[in-house]
């Protein structure tokens, strides 16, 4: 971070701030549009020209959590009057809530899938980041026979198009009983993310001067202690960045989640666009599902922001 001194640099800095703000606004515009759609009444989601000013509603979120079906005509006045507020919102959108054989309101798949997504993404991120960090350290600090080839092998595991991996993976999972289980997806996503995790962490650990640990070893630390107490804290930025990326990948994975799961371990990404199947897709519900689904990753990233920004903190003493 260059300190600002001269007036021309000050002006330059102001220009940079303005540019960053403009870029941020451009990047956020589509997100804003999605968020706005999540609060629109159904008939304002796709209008020509687009609707910009509107009265926000929470009906898309009510619909997101309930199983609904299209109505051909509005409900009778009595039915409408007797309905609770949230059910009226569904009626207002031209739909009704589906009830099961016992008359209970049926929930949509969203809440349970959301929970599955959380379990699977969090666990696989922890696995991928911890294994990746250890492996990266191993490669970075020790002499490994055929290091370049091994690293390239690790990288190559991400090169085969997923479309082709899907069928053999599906057969393999079926054979060992991992299909439609949480562990199945967790292991799969860990495998996806490992190559990235190893490579990125190696990039960061390579930059941490060996002298740090050597000094610690001289002070009587074991290698393990030196790793955990000296290297890991120094690699915090790398760990944070890797964790953010791994979490995002696992959180949003679509193709395998679709193919490998049926009922128990389904995650949310394949559910969100499913509203498109209805004769008039309810874009507000798709947007609501998207916005809620964005929250955990956004919060996770925001909490790690200071680590992300600290950069490679050892920079000052770099050779």
């Amino acid at each position, binding site marked *: 971070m*260059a300190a600002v001194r001269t007036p021309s640099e000050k002006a330059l800095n102001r220009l940079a701030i303005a540019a960053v703000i403009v*870029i*941020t606004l451009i990047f956020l515009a*589509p997100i804003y549009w999605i968020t706005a759609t999540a609060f629109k009444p159904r008939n304002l989601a796709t209008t020509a020209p687009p609707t910009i000013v509107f009265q926000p509603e929470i009906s898309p979120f009510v619909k997101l959590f309930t199983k609904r079906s299209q109505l051909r005509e509005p409900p009778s006045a009595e039915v409408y009057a007797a309905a609770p507020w949230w059910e009226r919102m569904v009626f207002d959108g031209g739909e009704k809530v589906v009830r099961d054989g016992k008359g209970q309101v049926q929930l949509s798949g969203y809440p349970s899938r959301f929970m599955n997504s959380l379990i699977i993404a969090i666990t696989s991120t922890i*696995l991928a980041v911890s294994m990746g960090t250890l492996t990266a350290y191993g490669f970075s600090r020790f002499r490994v026979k055929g290091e370049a080839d091994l690293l390239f092998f690790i990288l190559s595991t991400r090169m085969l198009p997923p479309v082709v991996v899907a069928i053999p993976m599906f057969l393999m999972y079926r054979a060992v009983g991992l299909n439609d289980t949480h562990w199945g997806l967790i292991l799969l996503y860990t495998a996806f993310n490992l190559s*990235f995790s190893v490579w990125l962490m190696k990039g960061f650990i390579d930059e941490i001067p060996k002298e740090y640990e050597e000094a610690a070893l001289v002070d009587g630390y074991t290698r393990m202690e030196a790793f955990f107490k000296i290297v890991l804290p120094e690699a915090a930025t790398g760990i944070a960045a890797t964790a953010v990326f791994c979490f995002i990948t696992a959180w949003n994975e679509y193709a395998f989640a679709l193919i490998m799961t049926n009922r128990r371990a389904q995650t949310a*990404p394949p559910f969100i666009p499913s509203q498109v199947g209805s004769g008039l897709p309810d874009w507000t519900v798709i947007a609501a599902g998207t916005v809620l689904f964005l929250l955990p990753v956004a919060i996770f990233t925001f909490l790690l922001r200071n680590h992300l*920004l600290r950069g490679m903190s050892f920079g000052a003493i770099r050779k």
Partner: protein
Amino acid sequence: MLATAIMTSLNSQSRAASRGMSDIKIRNLFIIPTILFLIVFNIFPLIYSLGYSFTDFRASTNAPANFVGLQNYRELLNDPFIWTNFAITAKYVIVSVTGQVLVGFGTAMLLNRDIPFKGLLTTLLLLPMMLSMAVVGLFWKLLYDPSFGIINYALGLGSFEWLSNPQMALYAVAITDIWMWSPFVMLLSLAGLSAVPKHLYEAAAIDRAGPFYTFFRITLPLVAPILMIAIIFRTMEAFKTFDIAYILTSQPTTEVISIRLYKMAFQEWQTGRSCALAYIVLVMVLAITNIYVKYLNKVKER
């Protein structure tokens, strides 16, 4: 799994035991589980695909797979449609990755200053890549729509056709991809940039070095290793692009190789043939990545 077991054991009692652990033991403990794990997860799909790529197998039928030798490869490599798909993919990768590097690295350069609310701004800038590809495809199709879309409305483009125009469609898909993944390049570049020691800039200032000299001689070489990693991963992903292109347009001019592969594998169920095509793709990506990695190593040695 093993890795967590190690951590648990390290946390409490066994510190004394680990004191004696040799470097070689540690190295093996750290590396071997990952390698084994990746072998288990990749070797079966790799062998399966390779094996079937020499047959006329169709997963959708009960007919036995017949060995056809190199026929699948020969037919694919002689199919002009496939080469068109590859050409489209190449163009797409170049446009999209270049765009991401320019936008992402440029934004990182700007952010690497005294900017208020830097943490918040960075988090906000990262939002696009946190969305799922399928959702991005769906919403960008709406954004680009000449009638309902906000893009034409905001830019006053009337009924300009982004996705229905065969010449424009690929760029429209690339713009979406750049929007989504520039933040990835930005974040990694930012981590690299903030590591550039201040005293190097000060020295350059004393030498009255111009901004170009400072950038090309100090900033870029020091950021290059981490930027290269970002480029390697973005290239690999761009080569495999599927969802965004598939959802956004129907144009033959945007049929990247993954779409062709998807149709072959999951609509036509020509399993053998699609395995062969996957191997052709794999070899290409391997070759490209290899060049990158060589370059990365060279950059690091400097």
